[in-house]
């Protein structure tokens, strides 16, 4: 494993994309930054611009309007960039599946890009952190 990769696993800056979620997953993501969980221990930071991001945390069921934005954001992110589906909605659209407002699920929209799925409604912060760690491990295996 090269130094670059090692540095990447030690410093994953995350960008949070809420694509039609109910807010819970988003709050639990923010909660990861807070004193009890403090993901800065692992070098992770929540960044304001997608250009600074190493991982996109996507939440929500993706409706027709936000799906296009998610795709655009993914294109704007400098590679390598991980994508994590946070919450049941992002994984398989959950309770909203079949609604007229929704469109393709995340893994069809960004084929092959989703590294980790963190189910739960909402997933606990521990689960989100564990998902991030596992996603980073896939980088090391390469």
């Amino acid at each position: 494993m090269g130094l670059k990769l090692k540095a990447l696993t030690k410093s994953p800056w995350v960008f949070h994309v809420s694509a039609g979620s109910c807010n819970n997953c988003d709050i639990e993501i923010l909660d990861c930054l807070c004193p009890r969980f403090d993901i800065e221990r692992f070098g992770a930071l929540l960044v304001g611009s997608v250009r600074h991001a190493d991982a996109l945390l996507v939440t929500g069921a993706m409706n027709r309007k936000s799906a296009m934005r998610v795709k655009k954001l993914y294109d704007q992110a400098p590679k390598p960039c991980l994508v994590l589906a946070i919450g049941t909605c992002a994984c398989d659209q959950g309770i909203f599946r079949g609604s007229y407002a929704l469109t393709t699920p995340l893994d069809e929209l960004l084929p092959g890009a989703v590294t980790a799925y963190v189910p739960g409604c909402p997933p606990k912060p521990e689960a989100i952190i564990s998902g991030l760690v596992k996603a980073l491990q896939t980088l090391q295996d390469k």
Partner: protein
Amino acid sequence: MTTIVPIGPFHPLLEEPELFRLHVDGETVVDIEVEIGWNHRGIEKICETKTFDQVPFVVERICGICSACHPTAYVQAVEDLADIEVPERALYIRSVITELERLHSHLLWLGLAGHFLGYNTVFMWAWKYREPVLDICEELTGNRNNYAMLKVGGVRRDLDESLFPSVLERMDDLDKHLNMLVGAVTDDPVLHARLKGVGILTPEAARAYGALGPTVRASGIPIDVRRDHPYAAYDLVDWDVISVDSCDVYGRAVVRLLECLESVKIIRRCLDQMRPGEIDSGVKEIPPGEGIGHAEAPRGETFHYVRSDGTNRPIRHKARAPTYMNLPTCRATTVGESITDATIILASVDPCYSCTERMGVYDASTGQKALDGKQLIKLSQEKTRQLREEMGE
């Protein structure tokens, strides 16, 4: 020259997707447009395909931080429709859950407000105090959010009385911390300078827009569904409606903080007064008819309307979240302010888009044609050119 500064749809200010277009002249906002729809999931249609007993699970997911208030409003609408009496213990349980939610929601807002002001210490401290509230929620209901406690005619689960002493103890702690936060906010001169007189919402404008919750209570209109249309156990315990008349962002912050103290009071009294008993009235059938239910969410009144044709599903379910009424007030509050203030003003109504958008997309533009991407780029390039000239390049 007017520049358009987009805030959103994916912006760290907002934990949810939203697009505000601030028309900015220098640093002053001259106009604002809101575009919503990034969160629209068609919940009202989904509800028509669920049975009356399943709908609470759907409306719970309208919004994560109002995940007790929407089901409360919904079950009250159905209870209104079918004239159902709810057992007293269930009423107390409903109050406890909704107040716990209000506590964590207001603390969450306080933290985010601090974050927007670049005051990350406040963010971290508020969220640290919020954590025990979530623990209590998890112990009492089984989940940190989305409690799945409400059902038509009562509640789904009883509260475990053996947990009450430890809950009360943590409420005492929280009380102390909240008082400290109140002191910190009211004593900080920089916060006064940043928040006082900013984002004025006059009582007249508040009424015209139909603003709700802390937003309107900070404009000197003391309306609160919990007192005005008592539901759950709010008429069985003693508490006060908080209202100030400063009409600004500072007032909204103070109202929320003081409301937290009231919530602690309500939870304590509910746990005290609660007596063993039935928690469910065992509803079998919903007759045809229509019903209305409303509840005071942390952000204001949630309003639900349900119509039944006698089958096991509602034929129409309408949900209106408080932000739906509060957000448009941004036109009254941000115009004329600086872009720096715009963010905290937008945040001061505690916008909750996932609520607002379960059904709607709206645009608060003043009828002027929204600019497309190309024009935006052109404008931004012009601004850059202007900047260059200013720099003497």
